[in-house]
């Protein structure tokens, strides 16, 4: 009883909520900002529209005026650019981020270097065989590395919410002739490389000097996956193939 009375008294004493001079802040989605947001929300999803006939004419005229544009001078490219600005753009994209082995083009230097390591670098494959975690996560800034293509894939799906359908590499469709040529080349190289791989006790550093001789510049030009011949598809690295089909043979490098 006494407690209740005490509470009642307190409540009365608390009394009026006096004006307090304090700053007020609102979250970005607060209704307070709603009217100002309306303009913004309408732009929240922009539709990229087609040009009208009028605009097309304008563009065509403009190109003609500018003298018909420039052709990329790089041998075998043949792209036509409509302005110097576009040419610079094109050059940076097409001719500086391509793999010297297979001509594959990547949108970032980082992805290119990952591609080169995983597909063309025997040193990389050696590390894989020895169980080092060398498959880098594709998301820049993550920093994690994995022992296999598959486990990296799993990480992308689990941690970075990549769709399960995502594949960094895709299967290529080689013609029969190309496949035979490729197999012959790989066979010769594997014989050379096996001798190096037998040095079991050497540290990885020691292996570098041996394997670096089998550099990527030896790539047979006939097995070229440049843009002209493919539709931007490349072959699945042998390491990945081995994981899919149980293969007890020792690690060899792939070409």
């Amino acid at each position, binding site marked *: 009883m006494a407690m209740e009375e005490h509470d009642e008294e307190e409540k009365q004493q608390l009394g*009026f*909520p*006096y*004006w307090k*001079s*304090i*700053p*007020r*802040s*609102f*979250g*970005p*989605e607060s209704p307070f*900002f709603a*009217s100002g947001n309306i303009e*913004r929300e*309408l*732009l929240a*999803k*922009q*539709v*990229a*529209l*087609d040009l009208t*006939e009028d*605009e097309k004419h*304008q*563009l065509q005229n*403009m190109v003609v005026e500018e003298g018909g544009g420039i052709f990329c001078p790089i041998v075998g490219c043949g792209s036509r650019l*409509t*302005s110097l*600005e*576009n040419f610079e*753009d*094109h050059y*940076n*994209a097409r001719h*500086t*981020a391509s793999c010297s082995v297979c*001509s*594959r*083009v*990547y*949108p*970032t*230097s*980082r*992805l290119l270097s990952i591609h080169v390591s995983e597909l063309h670098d025997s040193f990389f494959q050696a590390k894989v065989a020895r169980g080092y975690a060398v498959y880098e996560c*594709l*998301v820049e*800034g993550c920093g994690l590395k994995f022992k296999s293509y598959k486990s990296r894939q799993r990480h992308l799906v689990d941690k*970075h919410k*990549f*769709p399960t*359908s*995502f594949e960094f590499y895709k299967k290529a*469709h080689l013609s029969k002739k190309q496949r035979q040529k490729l197999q012959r080349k790989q066979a010769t190289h594997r014989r050379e490389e096996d001798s190096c791989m037998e040095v079991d006790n050497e540290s990885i550093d020691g292996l570098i000097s041996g394997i670096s001789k089998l550099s990527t510049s030896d790539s047979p030009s006939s097995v070229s996956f440049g843009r002209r011949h493919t*539709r*931007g598809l*490349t072959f699945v690295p042998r390491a990945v193939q081995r994981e899919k089909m149980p293969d007890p043979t020792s690690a060899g490098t792939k070409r």
Partner: protein
Amino acid sequence: MADESFAFHRRDPIKSSVGNVAANRRRQNAVTVGKERRESLVRAKRLCRVGISGDGDADVSLDSEMMIDEEQSILEAQTSSAVEVLKSAVAYQGKGAMQKRVSALRDLRRLLSKSEFPPVEAALKAGAIPILVQCLSFGSQDEQLLEAAWCLTNIAAGKPEETEALLPALPLLIAHLGEKSSLSVAEQCAWALGNVAGEGEKLRSVLLSQGALLPLARMMLPNKGSTVRTSAWALSNLIKGPDPKAATELVRIDGVLDAIVRHLKKADDELATEVAWVVVYLSALSNIATSMLVKNDVLQLLVDRLATSNSLQLLIPVLRSLGNLVAGDSQTIYAVLVPGHEITDSVIKVLVKCLRSEHRVLKKEAAWVLSNIAAGSVEHKRLINSSEAVPLLLRLLSTAPFDIRKEVAYVLGNLCVAPTEGDGKPNLILEHLVSLVSGGCLPGFIDLVRSADTEAARVGLQFMELVLRGMPNGEGPKLVEQEDGIDAMERFQFHENEDLRNMANGLVDKYFGEDYGLDE
């Protein structure tokens, strides 16, 4: 509003490259169409351009609804077959395969670029997404990447479930933002991702997990180009939260803060607008960002923009950024907004400019910012009280629309009350109270008490308490009575809201009790 944006995008066609003009026109149209579509989605009423050639006018009478449905189904059929054509083009490996693919993509893109109602659903049903994902594979020609990304952009601009359908494409879209991608490809991918991020929190979270923040941030670093603007827009959608993590991460990326400062200082209105929205979200969500922004003199840059610009599109986010910074960490802000320093005077001046504007949003939000400055030290209150703001505020309190009046009330009330120290009754600043009351602010507050809005009524009652308590010579009750204040309070006698009821009854009991009027 549409006219304003048209004015922005006009550029000298000779000077800009082909790509720019096209992109600008697209953007122009996009704004108009975006609005139309939004409105039509809300209204659930279909508008359709007469004729696929697109030369009909926007006014469609209801009579032709039958025809519209027919044309819509033609469009849908065309879209389904365009997807099929694309599938076979991708499967084809012979001569001229690339050209075939690009051509098929272009046809699909054109169908998806019909304003009013792109046949997104039909495209999705026909399996557009997996095939478009294939077209985004690494090493594909720029034209192919561009067209595929364009298709995805428009698919993502529709209903929530349509935007969600882009999930399988996201990692590739993000990858093609890379520094080695051609600018137009990167920009189109940024556009698509901006649409996805704009859809909602869940998709934002997926994009962030997949590493979209860093490459988009990098695209914002150059000085000019439409890519910078598009990426800034996409970023603002990406960091808008409610999770503050992305905002904090963004401001820590190398070069971002510098780019923001640079753009706020020198960029044209369009780019500055997008960057300002990035700052809005940075300042609203992240204390770290706020502190870094303030330390880099962003306050001055915002003030300069407010002082010189007349574009509503730009002023809204700039003003709001200023407001967020002021409302943020008080230590940081009051270290800069020192009374007597030029910056403080400029801030008040520029807020007064906004209060004088014809735009409702600017008036309301400027009053809000001012109320937060008025919540500072006694010197701040003195500064405002003696500025040109007060006569303007008094006028607004009587004449402006409700939402503005409420904010103005906060300014005036804060001017009359000393900074809060501990518990108990805050002290009055009598000088300010007296001058404001004689300036005629009381009726405005009593009006707020009468409003249906709980918060406004509360504010009104709180101010009345100040008057009743503080006015010298016991004038308070008389003044309140004169303005029908008692009447306003008595309406709360049996009000459903307990707090308001108690407040009002408490005041009436205390100041208009049995003894009231007996002295006379």
